[in-house]
C-alpha cells in the first residue's frame, strides 16, 4: 500500500501510477455530484451549469452546507455509495473527462470497463470521517442549481488540501481491490457455516 498525494487536475500519468489498494489524497479543485445532476444532464438533456474543464476529480457526495456571514461553509461531508449511479457513471467519465471518481464502496462492471478504456480510477473512503474532510476544505469555489435540485444534490466545486484518505478500489488497469476481499470472504464462508452447523447441502424449501 502506497500513500500518494495528487494535485488536481490529474494527468494521465498520475492516473497510471496509482494501483488498486493505494491510498490517495487530493490537492486542488474537486467537485461533487449526485443523481439529480446526472439525471438532468444525461437523461433530460440539460446543459451543464458550469465548466468541467480542468476539473477531472468528481466526488459522489452531498455535503451539508450552511451560510455563515454570506459564505457557504461545510458542516459535514462524506462520499456516498457509487453503485447506485452505475447507470450514469460511464457517460459521466466520457462527457466530463473524469480521471478519478470518489465514492463509497465500488462501481459496477460497465464503469470498470470504461475506466480502463478512458484511463480513470475509482477510490473510496476507508472509514467515515466527515470532520477530517470538512477540515480539508480551503474554499467553496462555486455552487450551481441549488434552486433547481436542492442543497445536497447541487454540484459544489471545492478547493481542498490533503483531501482523503481514499483507497483506490478500481484502478485504470481494471483491477479491483474489493474483488480480492470478496474472494477471501467466499472461502471463509465455509468455515462460518461449519461453526453454525449449517449442513453443506442445505437448501431452502421452496414456498413461493
Amino acid at each position, binding site marked *: 500500500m502506497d500513500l500518494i498525494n495528487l494535485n488536481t487536475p490529474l494527468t494521465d500519468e498520475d492516473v497510471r501510477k496509482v494501483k488498486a489498494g493505494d491510498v490517495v489524497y487530493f490537492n486542488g479543485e474537486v467537485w461533487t455530484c449526485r443523481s439529480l445532476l446526472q439525471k438532468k444532464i444525461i437523461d433530460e438533456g440539460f446543459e451543464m451549469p458550469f465548466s468541467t474543464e480542468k476539473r477531472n476529480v468528481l466526488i459522489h457526495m452531498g455535503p451539508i452546507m450552511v451560510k455563515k456571514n454570506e459564505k457557504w461553509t461545510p458542516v459535514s461531508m462524506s462520499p456516498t455509495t457509487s453503485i447506485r449511479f452505475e447507470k450514469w457513471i460511464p457517460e459521466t467519465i466520457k462527457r466530463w473527462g473524469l480521471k478519478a471518481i470518489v465514492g463509497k464502496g465500488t462501481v459496477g462492471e460497465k464503469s470498470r470497463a470504461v475506466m480502463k478504456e478512458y484511463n480513470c480510477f475509482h477510490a473510496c473512503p*476507508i472509514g467515515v470521517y466527515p470532520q477530517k474532510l470538512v477540515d480539508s476544505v480551503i474554499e467553496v469555489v462555486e455552487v450551481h442549481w441549488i434552486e433547481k435540485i436542492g442543497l445536497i444534490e447541487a454540484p459544489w466545486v471545492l478547493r481542498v488540501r490533503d483531501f482523503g484518505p481514499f483507497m483506490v478500489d478500481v484502478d485504470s488497469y481494471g483491477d479491483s481491490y474489493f474483488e480480492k476481499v470478496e474472494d477471501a470472504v467466499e472461502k471463509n464462508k465455509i468455515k462460518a457455516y461449519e461453526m453454525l452447523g449449517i449442513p453443506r447441502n442445505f437448501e431452502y424449501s421452496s414456498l413461493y
Partner: protein
Amino acid sequence: MISLEILGEAIRSTIIKAASELPSDVAHAFEKAIENEKSQLAAESLISTFESCKQAREKGGLLCPDTGWPLFFIKIGTNAKIEGGLLELERVAKEKVKECTQKGYLRPTMVHPITRIGKGDNIGDHIPHFTYKFFPGESLEITFVPKGGGSELFGGTRYRVLAPSDIPAGIKKFVIDAYIQAASAGKICPPSIVGVGIGGTSDICMNLAKEAAVLRPIGSHNRDEEIAKLEIELKRAINELGIGPMGIGGSTSVFSVHIEYAYVHTAGLPVAINANCAIARRATVRIRESEFEFLDDPNWFG
C-alpha cells in the same frame, strides 16, 4: 404536566445529541475493536472513523452527514400529561426536526418518492415516523434515531419466509448470506449492528429487526438464553468472514447481532434483518414534569 417549552427543548437537544455524539456503548465498541483488530488498514479505518466522531463533538460537526430518516421511538407513561394533549408531541417533534434541519444538524435528505424533491425540512407524509409504547409512570421517554441510508438501502434490510423444516439452519444461513452481500465493499458501513427479527407477521418481523438494530445497546442480549446464545454464535461466525470495517478486509466485521422474536403461525417462519451503521446513532431523553435527562439505554424491550 409537561410544558410545550420543556418538550421542545428536550426534543431539540436529543436530535442534536443523536447526530453529533456517539452513544457510550458504540464508543466502547470502537475502542475494543481498535485494540483487537488484526489488519493494519482495518485498524486505521476504525481509528480514523472514531477520531472523526470525537472531533465532530468538539467542533460542533456531525458524526455522519447522512442523517437519513428521522425516526422517533416513544415510551409514554400511562399517567404522563402534555400541555395541550398528547397530539402536541408530534407537532413539536416535527417543528424541531425542521428547525434542526435548517440549522445543519440534520441533512435535508427526505424527498417525495417519485419526484425526488423535498421541501428541505425532512417533513413529509409519514416522515418523521413515530413508534409508541406505553409503560407505567408519569414520564415520557423519547429516542431519536437518524437512520442512515447506507445501512437501510443497500442490502442491510432483507426479508424471507422459511418452512418449519428449514429451522434453525435456514435462519443462520439467511443472516450470513444477507450480511455478506450487504457489507461487500462497505455498502452498509460495517462493522454493523445486525438486528434480526424472527416470527410474527411480515411487518412485526421487520419492526423487531429494526428495533433490535437501532434501540438495543451493543453488548445487550436477548432475555431468552437460547436466543442469546444464537446472537453470540452469529457474531462469532460473521467475524470469521474477514469482511472488515467498510468491507476493506479485517477481523472486525460486525459489532453486534441482536435478535428479537415474536410468536408465529405454526405453518412457517418470517425472518428479517435490518442493519445499523457502525456509527450507530441514537439518543434517548426522559422527560418528567419540568425536567429532562438523557439515558444511555432506550430500554425498549425491557
